[in-house]
């Protein structure tokens, strides 16, 4: 056993981690590091606005644009919503937006947007010919309290 450990010590963690990723997939501390493993021909960006339609910075709501995008994908996958390429119907977007705002809200109870209206919106970027187009859609609005 000692000989085996000593002989494999130069690569043992490589082996353990690789096997761990195969078995557990995306479960911390294992990861396939799948970010940017493909370049989709569309992209989504999510943002907040207030009752005057002015943008609320994500940092004001204790989150980030990246976090919202991950949240969107997680919610779609957990609810088996087909997503991507702007295919989501208004009702699906409404439901996802509702869940996204609920998650944002529970970690923000003590923050400055108490009793204020917060709306979550989506920007959908896609190609039309060689030109990048952007479609903005409202998803859901709620009052933070």
């Amino acid at each position, binding site marked *: 056993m000692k000989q085996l450990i000593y002989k494999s010590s130069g690569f043992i963690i490589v082996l353990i981690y690789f096997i761990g990723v195969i078995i557990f997939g995306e*479960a911390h501390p294992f990861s396939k*590091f799948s970010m940017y493993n493909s370049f*989709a021909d569309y992209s989504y960006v999510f943002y907040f606005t207030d009752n005057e339609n002015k943008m609320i910075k994500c940092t004001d709501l204790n989150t980030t644009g990246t976090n919202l995008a991950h949240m969107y994908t997680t919610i779609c996958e957990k609810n088996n919503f087909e997503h991507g390429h702007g295919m989501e119907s208004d009702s699906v977007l409404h439901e996802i937006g509702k869940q996204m705002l609920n998650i944002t809200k529970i970690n923000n109870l003590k923050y400055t947007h108490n009793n204020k209206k917060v709306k979550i919106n989506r920007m959908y970027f896609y190609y039309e010919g060689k030109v*990048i187009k952007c479609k903005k859609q409202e998803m859901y609005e709620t009052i933070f309290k």
Partner: protein
Amino acid sequence: MIPFLNKNSYSKIEWTMMKSSFSLIWLLSFLLVFSRYNYAPTPESIFKLLPGSFYLSYNAKIFLLSTNLLLIYFYIIEKHIWWSLLGLSLISLFTFSLEDSNSDFNRNTMITGIFFAQFFAYSIKKIYLDFDTEKYRIQFSVQLISISYTISAISKLNTSGLKWITDGLLMPLQIMKTNYFGFVNDGNIAHITNARLIINLLDKYSFGVMFILAFTLIIELFAVVSIINKKYAFVYGVLLVFMHIGIYLVLDVAIGGTYIPMLIFMVNPVFLFWITLKKIKNTCMMLIGY
């Protein structure tokens, strides 16, 4: 040329600087996660094993912070290091699982992984007293970092194949996305100006884009060669730093949980800074005749 690279072992000062800077990064990440999250609304990793809903109270946070500070102290002064690393590994696993459970995937895999890898080295030492922990507590960390990059390349090849390189021509959409992420975070219009600038540049040099992507894929795929020895780890670390700078300039993306541990354990910038200062001091002493 750089004498400390010629040895395949690590000095005590190198190790001290690595673990001090790593502890600092870990503590900052810990504070960031705990200041943000109290719940696990989208359970991931160990939170999938919890039966009910989860809430992290203020008192529990204070307890975890105190324990964490104590364990970091023991880790740095190297007392009860086996227990310290076990504790740090578990707290790190808990912390970043909580982060993931808020759909905040900051890819802090390496931080937890490095604590576990070092814990593994000390566990072998507990059984076999002649095991070279001075070398392997760092070499195991390098192994974990390098395999992570290689897995990232395998994931690209597995999902997109070699088309990943030509698909890079769709990158302007990702550039828009990542720069807009910056804009919705802080409201700074400079992110959007930057996106337009980069997209125009890429449009002119599409062959160059494919070349850079191919280069990135090769660097990532062969990152595992860093485990050969200390010199390989350093040279590869520098290559990876350039790759991350490129990603930051083009995509406005900097994944701290990935590049900072790599920088600490493969390049060790604090140590480099320290030996540079020492060299400058010695030169000055010589010049003034001491």
